[in-house]
């Protein structure tokens, strides 16, 4: 069957499933809309959390990022998984015991302060909206590349699907669709990886294949190290991401940020018990780890395949490079999307792909008549998107990758949209402006807030602000420096009071924002940066993306010091803290 028809059928089938789930799981109370009635099985919640968490970036971009960064890409692998250890041990069980609907609600009650609640709402909305723009872009990209429709058409279709199940079903609808989406995306990710691992190493398990030997008896990673250094690139298995301090703090920022992202935290409000929240975090990480331990294999193998495709013989020999006219069909196909570009700089009709930023190697290359790297564009996303074609896999696998990419983007978008809409309807409307609102009206308000959030996200996806590429750093920086410390102190430090928490959140947040804006421009306006964004200018070589951990430390220190310099929190708050520290009483749930 033709690829396009196949793609339409596979993607269409997944959409039918999502809509069927939406109709079956309508929400009829605010409890169902915000936290799925607290009735989700911990394993099911783990699966939904994995889909909620793994975004278009995890699915489409991460393996490519690792392919080009090598060892330096480890910060994403450790950072985006290690956060679940913090979540499981420091936040999830206690927030589940607290038993309310939103993250700002905990902040507001624990710190007995509407100001604290509003600061938390602002952090949540900024972090979630910046994050959702990327998902909307991901949906449009997946549609336009695989189904050959306009970017906007793809985006509207995706918005329509999310609208149906998120507005009707709230958290309940989102949870069951996320479970279905997890199944789609994990099959779509692992099947091509299994085939490629089998082709290269004879081992069907990519995690083992990456450490295995190839047909010629050499280890795959040794071979990869050799061929990339032969072309002037840094050695794959040792190329670090900045200095050691930067790798350390980058990883820490991503971990703390992960644990502090509200759309992930609220997933743990949906399980029946405190005990379930602990196990559920474990299951979530199991389901995430399946993709995250496969990604390094996909990255390394794709890099090997790509390099070998172009460098067909010995480096420097006259016939060692791919003849341009004989380049494989997948290269031609992806050139039309602009993700891949080639330019015959020395006019020899062959393609040279090497590191022309490496001065020593360039001198050598000039001796062979090479006049610059001719792969002028190799988008990192190509590593996952074109992977099945590079390995000549059947059309249904390519169709599955399309459905998987869309599932990953939709599931994360829905989770973020719920976090945004519940912050508006529950924290701002019911919590601050209209405390007397009836449950029926609040449910209606939450549906309207959801619809509004979807439209806003769609609009931002169509008209992405100039800083769209920087937003991931911003979202993690915000979550790490503001939300996580406030939550953790709220549970582990009985003495933490409202003045301390607010001072902590604001100082952590401003330090992080200041550092990011300093190197990336005020509010990301180009030309307003105070110093060039290069390692020489960074404080101790810490990149702006890695600064969230420093912001978090500042938040902790300020909150601790200010809390002790001011009056302790009132008696009933100290009782509240003691109460959330023990599981008993969670089953009944807090009265609302």
């Amino acid at each position, binding site marked *: 069957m033709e690829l396009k028809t196949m793609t339409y059928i596979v993607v269409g089938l997944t959409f039918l499933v999502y809509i069927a789930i939406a109709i079956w799981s309508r929400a009829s109370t605010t409890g169902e809309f915000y936290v799925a009635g607290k009735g989700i099985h911990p394993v099911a919640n783990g699966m939904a959390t994995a889909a909620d968490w793994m975004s278009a970036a995890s699915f489409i971009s991460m393996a490519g990022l690792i392919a080009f960064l090598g060892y330096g890409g480890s910060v994403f692998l450790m950072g985006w998984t290690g956060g679940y250890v913090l979540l499981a041990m420091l936040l999830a069980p206690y927030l589940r015991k607290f038993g309310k609907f939103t993250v700002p609600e905990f902040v507001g009650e624990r710190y007995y302060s509407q100001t604290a609640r509003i600061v938390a709402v602002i952090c949540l909305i900024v972090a979630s909206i910046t994050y959702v723009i990327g998902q909307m872009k991901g949906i449009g990209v997946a549609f336009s590349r695989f189904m050959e429709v306009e970017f906007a058409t793809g985006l509207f279709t995706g918005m329509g699907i999310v609208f149906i199940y998120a507005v009707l079903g709230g958290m309940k609808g989102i949870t069951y669709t996320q479970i279905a989406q997890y199944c789609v995306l994990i099959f779509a990710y692992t099947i091509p990886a299994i085939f490629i691992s089998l082709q290269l190493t004879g081992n069907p398990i990519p995690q083992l294949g990456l450490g295995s030997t190839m047909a010629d008896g050499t280890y795959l990673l040794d071979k990869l190290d050799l061929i990339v250094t032969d072309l002037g690139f840094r050695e794959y298995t040792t190329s670090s991401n900045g200095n050691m301090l930067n790798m350390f703090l980058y990883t820490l920022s991503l971990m703390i940020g992960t644990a502090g992202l509200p759309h992930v935290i609220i997933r743990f409000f949906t399980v029946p018990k405190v005990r379930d929240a602990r196990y559920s975090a474990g299951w979530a990480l199991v389901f995430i780890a399946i993709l995250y*331990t496969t990604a390094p294999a996909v990255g390394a193998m794709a890099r090997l395949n790509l390099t070998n495709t172009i460098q067909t013989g010995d480096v420097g020999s006259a016939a060692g490079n791919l003849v341009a006219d004989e380049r494989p069909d997948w290269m031609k196909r992806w050139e039309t999307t602009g993700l891949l570009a080639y330019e015959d700089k020395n006019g020899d009709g062959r393609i040279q792909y090497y590191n022309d930023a490496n001065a020593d190697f360039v001198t050598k290359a000039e001796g062979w008549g090479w006049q610059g790297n001719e792969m002028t564009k190799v988008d990192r996303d190509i590593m996952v998107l074109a992977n099945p074609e590079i390995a000549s896999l059947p059309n249904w696998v390519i169709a599955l990758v399309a459905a998987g990419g869309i599932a990953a983007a939709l599931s994360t978008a829905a989770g973020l949209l719920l976090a945004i809409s519940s912050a508006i309807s529950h924290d701002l409307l019911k919590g601050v402006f209209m405390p007397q609102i009836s449950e029926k009206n609040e449910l209606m308000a939450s549906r309207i807030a959801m619809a509004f959030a979807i439209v806003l996200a769609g609009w931002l996806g169509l008209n992405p602000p100039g800083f769209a590429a920087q937003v991931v750093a911003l979202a993690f920086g915000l979550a790490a420096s503001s939300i996580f410390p406030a939550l953790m102190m709220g549970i582990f430090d009985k003495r933490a009071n409202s003045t301390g928490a607010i001072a902590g959140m604001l100082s952590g947040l401003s330090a992080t924002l200041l550092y990011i804006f300093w190197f990336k421009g005020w509010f990301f306006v180009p030309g307003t940066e105070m110093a060039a964004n290069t390692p020489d200018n960074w404080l101790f070589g810490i990149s702006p993306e890695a600064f969230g951990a420093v912001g978090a430390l500042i938040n902790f220190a300020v909150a601790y010091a200010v809390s002790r310099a001011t009056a302790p929190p009132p008696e009933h708050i100290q009782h509240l803290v003691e109460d959330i*520290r023990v599981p008993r009483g969670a089953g009944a749930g807090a009265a609302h």
Partner: protein
Amino acid sequence: MITKDNRAAYWKDNLRLVTICLVIWFVVSYLFGIVLAEPLNSIRLGGYKLGFWFAQQGSIYVFVVLIFFYARQMNKLDQKYDVHED
């Protein structure tokens, strides 16, 4: 009825468990995967250099085991101090 002493003892044991888990969390990722990665890379695990393996595979496996270990131990503590649900 949960007594004050009971609560305090339960919390102390909980903190000890969390500390142990987070020390392991720190060692496998930050020490083995980053700080000590270079010396560890001289040891091989099949085709993997050990430091690289911890950074891209091993630490993630340990994280998963840690959470389940923590959840199991917490269940035991809940029972021991009679603060469990139901």
